[in-house]
């Protein structure tokens, strides 16, 4: 069987990739996709921890994370559409009106 640490390493790598995507990419859609990668990394570690403790709680938390991800995608994409209508751009640097 695979040790718990291996799953956690995969999860950490995926989370790091997602974080790097949020910081490096300058396309609102790709940034939202990077957030999905991070949520999935967390899901993987939840399921792995749940399995190693021998309970189903990890799986159930994963369902809640998926629900929140669906809500976040719906609202986030709604915001992206509204922003695109204003500026005709998906570059986050185009939306600096609130910046001091």
């Amino acid at each position: 069987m695979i040790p718990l640490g291996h799953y956690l390493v995969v999860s950490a790598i995926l989370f790091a990739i997602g974080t790097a995507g949020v910081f490096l990419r300058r396309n609102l859609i790709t940034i939202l996709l990077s957030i999905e990668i991070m949520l999935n990394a967390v899901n993987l570690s939840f399921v792995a921890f749940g399995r190693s403790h021998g309970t189903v709680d990890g799986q159930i938390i994963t369902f809640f994370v998926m629900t929140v991800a669906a809500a976040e995608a719906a609202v986030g994409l709604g915001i992206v559409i509204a922003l695109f209508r204003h500026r005709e751009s998906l570059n986050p640097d185009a939306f600096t009106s609130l910046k001091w």
Partner: protein
Amino acid sequence: MPDTVLFYVFSAVAVGASLLVIGQRNPMYSIMLLIASFGALSALYIQLDAPFVAMAQIIVYAGAIMVLFLFVVMLLNAPQEDAAQWDRTHPLRRSGVGRFGAMLAALLTVQLVWALLRVSDASAVGARGDVAELTSVRSVGRVLFTDYVFAFEATSILILVAMVGAVVLAAREEKR
């Protein structure tokens, strides 16, 4: 032994596809690659004796959320990122910021490796628990609707709020 090989194969697919998601300039390819990454992750869930989560991953993530992303990309006819402009104007290109960020990243990597190596020598994942109990949808549902019933109901309100919010945000403003 085949377990271990499959674990490494699917982990490699998940990590590689996620890296390519970040590397693409065309959001359409990013979405397709992310679906591949989710498929590999659902295989990992099956290895972790969580078949229901694996199916939910395919149906909810790959089937619903990613299709929503695809719709938005096609709707907006999204422009691709401009590489030359990225090179000139990205905040991380400033040397002071870049150096500070690299230092923090190195520190965090050292911490993570140290913490994860301490976990690695623990026992194998499948050591505890009854497999038949863990894989059955019945036991998952029983815990979900008893111990977590409040969170479940709160989630329904969250979905309602998100739905209303998405409709309000995406609706075209009326001309007066």
